């Protein structure tokens, strides 16, 4: 039995001349909670639809628990549950009818846990889907996915439309899933959500996976933000190895340092530093650094 929940090799999807996903090599171990980030159009949903067998790859292959996603989709789907960002449901069914239908089709339901989820998400299951708000429809698909206790949860913007309280409830559910040994693949735009839940994070850019690792690894490779205050004249630190983005404000200097901080610490000590603040980049800053020109991290 494969130790990997998800494995892709050279997975590629092209629409004409446009590469929506370009040679993706992705590995997710069993029991991991992995975040998948990227701006709109980067290829996140394309990746997920290829994993689910809803789209056909132009090249490469994808496996879930060692099973080919294209060749054996029904077997793959017995072990996973999926939540899309757009909860398109049958308007004339009630929430209870929808959950019953999706549970029967899935083939297994933890009914006790389903009732817990209905209470936790404060869902009125007697209401018709067309009377639900977007957030309530999202709750239905979330409950439908979680109630089958799948080995793998594939989540594409799962908290779209949920209020902050329900988002907290969602985080509790994912933490429970992680503790039960379930694997979670979470595509999201909410950095705090990913930062709180995910052990590893992948960042996608123009269909290419440009970063993949733990937050600690990513931070290690990224710059620290430093704020230093001096008693006397502010020294010129721009020549110190690894230092960049130096900006002076009176007796305080703001800078970023990448790699070893030892040369900078020596230079600061020699210049008579009286105050020193250092801060690791947040996931949001790491993400913006990959994409934007206004990120503080280089």
């Amino acid at each position, binding site marked *: 039995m494969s130790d990997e929940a998800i494995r892709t090799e050279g997975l590629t999807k092209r629409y004409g001349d446009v590469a929506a996903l370009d040679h993706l090599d992705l590995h997710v171990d069993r029991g991991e909670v992995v975040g998948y980030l990227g701006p709109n159009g980067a290829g996140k949903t394309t990746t997920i639809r290829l994993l689910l067998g809803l789209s056909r790859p132009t090249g490469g292959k994808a496996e879930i628990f060692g099973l080919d996603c294209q060749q054996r989709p029904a077997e793959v789907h017995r072990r996973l549950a999926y939540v899309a960002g757009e909860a398109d449901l049958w308007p004339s069914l009630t929430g209870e009818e929808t959950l019953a239908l999706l549970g029967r089709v899935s083939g297994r339901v933890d009914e006790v846990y389903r009732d817990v989820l209905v209470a936790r998400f404060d869902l009125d*299951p007697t209401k018709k889907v067309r*009377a639900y708000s977007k957030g309530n429809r999202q709750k239905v698909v979330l409950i439908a996915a979680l109630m089958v206790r799948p080995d793998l949860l594939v989540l594409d913007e799962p908290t779209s439309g949920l209020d902050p309280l329900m988002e907290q409830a969602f985080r509790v559910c994912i933490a429970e899933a992680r503790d039960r040994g379930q694997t979670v693949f979470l595509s999201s735009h909410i950095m705090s959500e990913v930062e709180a839940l995910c052990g590893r994070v992948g960042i996608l850019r123009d269909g290419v996976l440009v970063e993949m690792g733990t937050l600690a690894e990513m931070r290690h490779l990224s710059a620290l933000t430093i704020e230093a205050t001096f008693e006397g004249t502010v020294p010129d630190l721009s020549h110190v190895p690894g230092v960049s983005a130096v900006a002076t404000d009176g007796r305080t200097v703001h800078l970023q340092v990448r790699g070893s901080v030892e040369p900078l610490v020596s230079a600061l000590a020699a210049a008579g530093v009286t105050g020193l603040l250092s801060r690791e980049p947040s996931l949001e800053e790491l993400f913006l650094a990959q994409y934007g020109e206004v990120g503080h991290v280089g």
Partner: protein
Amino acid sequence: MSADLAVAPPATVATPTRRSPVTAVAARSARSAVRSGALWGLLLGVVIASSAVSYTKIYKTAASRDALAATYGHSQAMSALFGPAPNLQTVTGFTDFKVTMTLMILGAVWGLLTSTRLLRGEEDRGRWDLLVAGQTTRRRATAQAIAGLGAGAAVLWIVTALVTIVGWHGAKVHVGVVPSLYFALAKVAAAVMFLAVGAVTSQLAATRRQAAASAAVVLGVSYALRLLADAGVGLHALIWVTPLGWVEELRPLTAPRPSALVPIAVFTFVLCGVAVQLAGRRDVGASIVADRTHAEAHLRLLTGPAGLAVRLLRATIIGWWVAIALAALLYGLIAKSAGTAISGSVHEVFAKLGAVGSGADAVLGLCFLVLAILIGFVAAGQVTAARAEESEGMLDHFLVRPVSRWSWLAARSVVALGVMVVAGLAAGLFAWLGAATQHSGLSVVTLLGAGINLVPPSMVILGVGVLAFGIRPRVTSWAVYGLLGWSLLLVVVGGIGAVSHWVLDTSVFHQMASAPAVAPHWEANAIMAAVGIAAALVGGWAFRHRDVQGE
């Protein structure tokens, strides 16, 4: 793609586009309605033109025209079904008789479907919120959308008139421009009125399906009242209480009565006004008739794709079954009396219309063609419903669970086939019930066989629909309704006699025997069923190898 977050906004403020908020919604609605109106106008015009041409080719002598008039002109049963036929000795009189009922129903269906799609349908999809959030009000936006529908109706009228005038010319019939315009107006009047009916039901009902169904009920009641008025049972005054009766009373080219335009215009404008007023009295997304937001769970059918399809479409399915059964019952009731008119030289004339044989079975042979067309619509509706499940994202819920594409598509196809078979059996059974009350001498086995005989053409439509769904899902609707329209067109123009049998053979209805007038051709039926199944299998294979696609 790289997001440049540091891009500064432009130094100067751009001038906003000059499209007036007063016309933006109307323009949007008009774009869709005009496109559709032009296509349907073409269809209506071709039906009219082909009738005129076929008459001049078939009935060349005064004797044959007199015989035709003798057959239809005094038959109350025929009058109830198709409307009065006062002047069958002329091309214009025959054309008016032959096309009036068909175009009235087709036009009304177009009207109610178009207006519910562009009003309630847009609201169902959430697009109406965006429009009403602009510089307009609910009432104004509704008025604009109705104005757009009006543009579509105008194009429907103009295209119908143009094709009709060309048709007159082709048949060497001299009809002036003004009478031709009036004739075309009479043929699209039902469409215009049912645009307005759809506009009102779009305010009353909570969903597009409910709005269309309510408007269809109005159409059914209107047809029934007109039928009673023309049945010669002393209720002719009813003609003035039904919109379809007003259309009939326009009598273009025979005894024009433009005053009948008054109730048509009043009905249309009043309903449009009511729709605009109602739009202002409700929230966007809500309905005037309170919708049940809560319901008890009914889980019996919710076991998988097939059960869900039955659950979601049962109202539509039952509606079709009832309509087909009632039509068959009616045909059975009139078959004997209509059949007695077929004798001697008239028999030859009747045969040219496609009725093989003589007596009640000959009439039913012709009437069952109408039922075959209705079952064709059932097949087309089932395929487009399956495609809608994909395009609206609901199919994903099955395909990300242990349901293979094959099993989903097979389940939907089997449900569709079951609906068609029951419709065919209902047609046979109810036609027999009607015929038995009149002692027509037709056995239940014969008519059940004739009912089953209606199914194979629809299997071809279903198969071609599944094929299109598998290969190019976005053209599914065009493919099924295109095949249906083409086959229908060939039924209409087939009487001209100038159409090659190779072309006629492309009509699925041309392959069907005119049972019960003749015995069903089971070999031909088996071939049609095989073609349908083969097309569906290829479509299923293609579906397995393509992306799941939205709109």
